[in-house]
């Protein structure tokens, strides 16, 4: 039987209460929401926090809304709610694409968006999706609120900029005219990605005015492919350029060989997935803007 080590358990009744508890119990305390990463780690004794602060009652963090043309996703929003949100699906289909292949429906009932980002697993799908669309993380502490671009949120595997005493409360994505998509290769239903890629693009006068490319499980710094984005932005959205962007992304990422495949295979997937996901995003863009179809 896998049993976590002993810990103190506190249930937060509000964000302020959670922050008070985080201050009181310090660096050895951990926030728990869905718990579908933290509790398994505690069962394996890979994590042994002295105190758990349960934020499951903080309904104010479980909402999806639009405020001043910004999509606001509470940290406690469950995967299943992000997947089924018509609001999210309308503006950023990349999230529904990603959620459909995150774990399984029962796990998605419990796991949360904020928990996924704070876990900072290199194979986590939402990290790449939020990096692709240039989302922002809203982090609160007793001292106030700060906003960090998701592209600067991750310090390394399983490490983020969230400090002791701080709580990730919301993810924000500015709503703009764009199209997005996410594609993943997995060994079997519900598994972590062998590799995955997300893309967001916006065209103006036949030229890519904005390009975002997220990479999952490929060792890309902060889950995105900046060299491929720089190559694409400012030029047309052609098949040839998408294929070249894939090759650039494959060259600049840093996948590691593991039980899911050797490095060369993962680089091959990086090139192929980036190419394909850009095409899916372009098809969606053309569907939204039939009058100025991009080739």
């Amino acid at each position, binding site marked *: 039987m896998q049993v976590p080590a002993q810990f103190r358990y506190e249930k937060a009744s509000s964000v302020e209460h959670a922050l008070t508890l985080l201050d009181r119990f310090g660096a050895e305390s951990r926030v728990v929401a869905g718990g579908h990463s933290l*509790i398994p780690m505690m069962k394996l004794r890979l994590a042994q926090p002295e105190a758990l602060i349960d934020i499951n009652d903080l309904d104010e963090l479980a909402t999806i809304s639009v405020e001043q043309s910004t999509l606001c996703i509470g940290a406690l929003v469950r995967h299943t709610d992000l997947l089924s949100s018509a609001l999210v699906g309308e503006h950023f289909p990349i999230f529904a694409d990603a959620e459909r292949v995150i774990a399984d*429906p029962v796990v998605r009932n419990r796991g949360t968006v904020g928990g996924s980002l704070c876990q900072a697993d290199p194979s986590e799908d939402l990290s790449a999706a939020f990096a692709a669309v240039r989302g922002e993380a809203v982090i609160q502490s007793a001292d106030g609120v700060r906003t960090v671009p998701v592209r600067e949120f991750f310090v390394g595997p399983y490490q983020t900029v969230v400090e002791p005493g701080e709580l990730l409360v919301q993810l924000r994505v500015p709503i703009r005219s764009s199209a997005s998509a996410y594609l993943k290769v997995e060994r079997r239903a519900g598994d972590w990605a062998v590799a995955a890629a997300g893309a967001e693009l916006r065209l103006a006068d036949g030229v890519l005015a904005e390009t975002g490319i997220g990479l999952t499980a490929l060792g890309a710094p902060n889950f995105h492919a900046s060299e491929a984005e720089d190559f694409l932005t400012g030029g047309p959205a052609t098949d040839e350029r998408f294929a070249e962007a894939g090759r650039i992304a494959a060259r600049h990422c840093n996948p590691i060989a593991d039980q899911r495949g050797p490095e060369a295979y993962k680089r091959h997937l990086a090139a192929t997935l980036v190419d394909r996901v850009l095409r899916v995003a372009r098809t969606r863009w053309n569907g939204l803007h039939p009058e100025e179809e991009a080739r």
Partner: protein
Amino acid sequence: MIMEVTVTVNGHAYTRTIEPRLLLTHFLRDELGLTGTHWGCDTSNCGTCVVWLDDVPVKSCTVLAVMADGRQVRTVEGLEGADGLDPVQQGFVACHGLQCGFCTPGMLMTARWLIDHNPAPSEGDIREAISGQLCRCTGYENIVRSVRWAAEHEAGVREHTVEEAGTEVQA
């Protein structure tokens, strides 16, 4: 640390004093003696421990019992009603939906939730719904048939009830 919790399971409120590290699946089985909920992989992969927490299916090996304090839990023991077995249970009987039976409680709880939210699930809907649950006997074909049987049976009962109501109005 020891905590007193009150969890309502299948409509009955149970108060127990537990360690916060106790998992919900062990709380149900060892503290309450409700061994219908099975304890399988212990890694949230197999899904035999699925119960409803506030009307949502969750893997109870990855939920702390203290998280269920003040909340509602429904287990496989709560499926049977005054009229007898739940239609999903009847479906598993009628379509040979179990062999060793180890995965069955989780399959039943997920199937019940699916039909409640999607009364006419396609085969694809059913396979997606149980995609986080493993049958070591690999009896998936019959599990899918069993869930379809339950959905069709319930649809038939609804239709029959409407017809009867219609007849009464005419009479």
